């Protein structure tokens, strides 16, 4: 087994890639959760995931086992519930991996949650899913009901003394819900405004109780890690990071899509082998390697491995690992306006630099694109991007993320911004893009 996330989906090709409970169990499904819950201590489970060096697949890349170890155990947790929350609020532009996993193999996520909940001794689990993922939410609700009927969810799971309830929470929208403390406020029925940190959720999260928030793909890795061990998981990666990843490519490539591949797969292999290269008549100008809030990389970076460290060393982030390809028909100034429109609109509005600054950046980009740019605008843009993006000026990293593609666009494509100002508008407007 070298594809712990999608092997069953591939095998279920005849039924459209949808893995039933029967098919899931025939392929060793729920055996890892059963073994962990009935024969291991929570600390042992945490230890295996820590040793495997599983890192968060939602974008931040924090080691999952380490995060779990921050949860107070036993009497130290005080009276009341502990929570495991799955972040299924997939809204990072360009990202489409979690929907694929949830729609096609919902029991894999349920099993990952069971193991995660046991490891931190949580008695409540929620799957916080974006409101537009109707099909995935229905599949998960059905999967939870099937698992409950078998005694895998609810009281005394697998006949053990461990009990956990699982439920799906359908969100009311807004990108900011992906920020884990905003997500917890939304789960509590409030406006999704990020909380100040500390305290961090493992100590004080949902309803003030210890809470772990993990991404869908992160939790989906857990069953195979428990079944096959940390060493096996390490060996799956071809670079410095462990395991596999559902990588994706969108944009003007011949074969856009998703593929589960070893961590450390080079960008070039993703683009040229799996995505089939650029469509005829288009050339690659840049990529956003892991969603809209990651810095641009360019053709000079194509031999980098998709691992957390090397992508960060190149000035960007692995993010969600689903890359957006920017071709030569795209105006970088107008693309930047599109990105900043997104971030300005999706600011929760609580902190001033984000609420006021992002629309201001969007307007400046619109001015440059539409021929109202002035000499000095780029310096102004840089100065404000620096202020808006500086961590610590805001409760969360929304504005910081927004400035990643902004600063890197100015770094790699500055001449195009300058040409807009010098020529009084967009040189590409009547060009290739039409």
């Amino acid at each position, binding site marked *: 087994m070298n594809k712990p996330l999608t092997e069953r989906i591939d095998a279920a090709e005849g039924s459209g890639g949808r893995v039933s409970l029967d098919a899931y169990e025939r392929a060793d499904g729920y055996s890892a959760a059963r073994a962990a819950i009935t024969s291991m201590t929570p600390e042992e489970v945490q230890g295996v995931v820590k040793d495997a060096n599983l890192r968060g697949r939602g974008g931040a890349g924090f080691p999952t086992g380490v995060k779990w170890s921050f949860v107070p155990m036993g009497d130290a947790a005080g009276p009341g519930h502990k929570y495991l929350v799955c972040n299924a609020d997939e809204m990072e532009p360009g990202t489409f991996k979690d929907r694929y996993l949830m729609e096609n193999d919902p029991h894999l996520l349920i099993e990952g949650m069971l193991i995660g909940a046991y490891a931190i001794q949580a008695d409540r689990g929620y799957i916080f899913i974006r409101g537009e993922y109707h099909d995935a939410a229905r599949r998960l609700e059905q999967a939870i009901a099937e698992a409950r009927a078998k005694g895998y969810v609810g009281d005394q799971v697998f006949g053990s003394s461990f009990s956990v309830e699982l439920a799906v929470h359908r969100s*009311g*929208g807004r990108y900011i819900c992906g920020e884990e403390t905003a997500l917890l406020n939304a789960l509590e029925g409030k406006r999704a405004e990020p909380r100040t940190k500390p305290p961090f959720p493992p100590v004080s999260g949902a309803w003030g109780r210890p809470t772990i928030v993990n991404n869908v793909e992160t939790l989906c890795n857990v069953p195979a890690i428990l079944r096959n061990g940390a060493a096996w998981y390490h060996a799956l990666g071809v670079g410095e990071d462990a395991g596999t990843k559902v990588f*994706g490519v969108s944009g003007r490539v011949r074969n856009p899509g998703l593929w589960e591949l070893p961590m450390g797969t080079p960008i070039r292999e993703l683009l040229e082998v799996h995505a089939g290269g650029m469509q005829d008549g288009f050339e690659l100008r840049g990529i956003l390697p892991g969603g809209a809030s990651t810095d641009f990389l360019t053709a000079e970076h194509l031999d980098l491995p998709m691992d957390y460290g090397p992508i960060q060393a190149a000035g960007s982030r692995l993010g969600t690992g689903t890359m957006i390809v920017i071709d030569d028909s795209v105006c970088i100034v107008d693309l930047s306006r599109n990105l900043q429109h997104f971030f300005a609109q999706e600011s929760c509005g609580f902190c001033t630099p984000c609420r006021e600054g992002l629309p201001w950046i969007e307007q400046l980009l619109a001015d440059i694109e539409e021929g109202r740019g002035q000499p000095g605008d780029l310096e102004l843009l840089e100065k404000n991007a620096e202020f808006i993006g500086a961590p610590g000026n805001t409760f969360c990293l929304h504005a910081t993320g927004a400035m990643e593609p902004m600063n890197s666009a100015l770094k790699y494509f500055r001449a195009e911004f300058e040409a807009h100002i010098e020529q009084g508008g967009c040189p590409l407007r009547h060009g290739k893009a039409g």
Partner: protein
Amino acid sequence: MSEVVNVQLISALSKAETAAIEAEIAHLPNRESAAISALRIVQERRGWISDESLHAIAHLLGMSAHALDSIATFYNLIYRRPVGRHVLMLCDSVSCYVMGYAGIREALIEKLGIHEGETTADGRFTYLPNVCLGACDRAPVLMIDEDLIGNVAPEGLDEVLARYE
């Protein structure tokens, strides 16, 4: 919104709506935590959240209508104005932008005769912009009601729209 709560309007939730909201409350530590779920439950049945619905839900959850409205207006999938028979959401995020969003938007505005946030005069469609719908390999993408429709082209729009009366 009126400060005076109309008692008749408070009883406006149906038995099915009340039961569905109570089922949500059952797995939460307090009633107010069900606010977003309750708004979604009522909207699923009525299409949108009127002032009357808002008051009725607030009463059921034991919170003020003003507090509930500040939540309802925060979330883009909760509608505080009536919508058409079908809600059409066009993705305007980066992958769809790269793959021809502008042309789809132009064609939609021409065919429907409305802009973002508006409803056609016959009440058939409400057109809303939306962020990434998570189907970037099939960009450009739009969603009508619960149907995700990918690889949309301006010339194919008539055929897509015709499926929704």
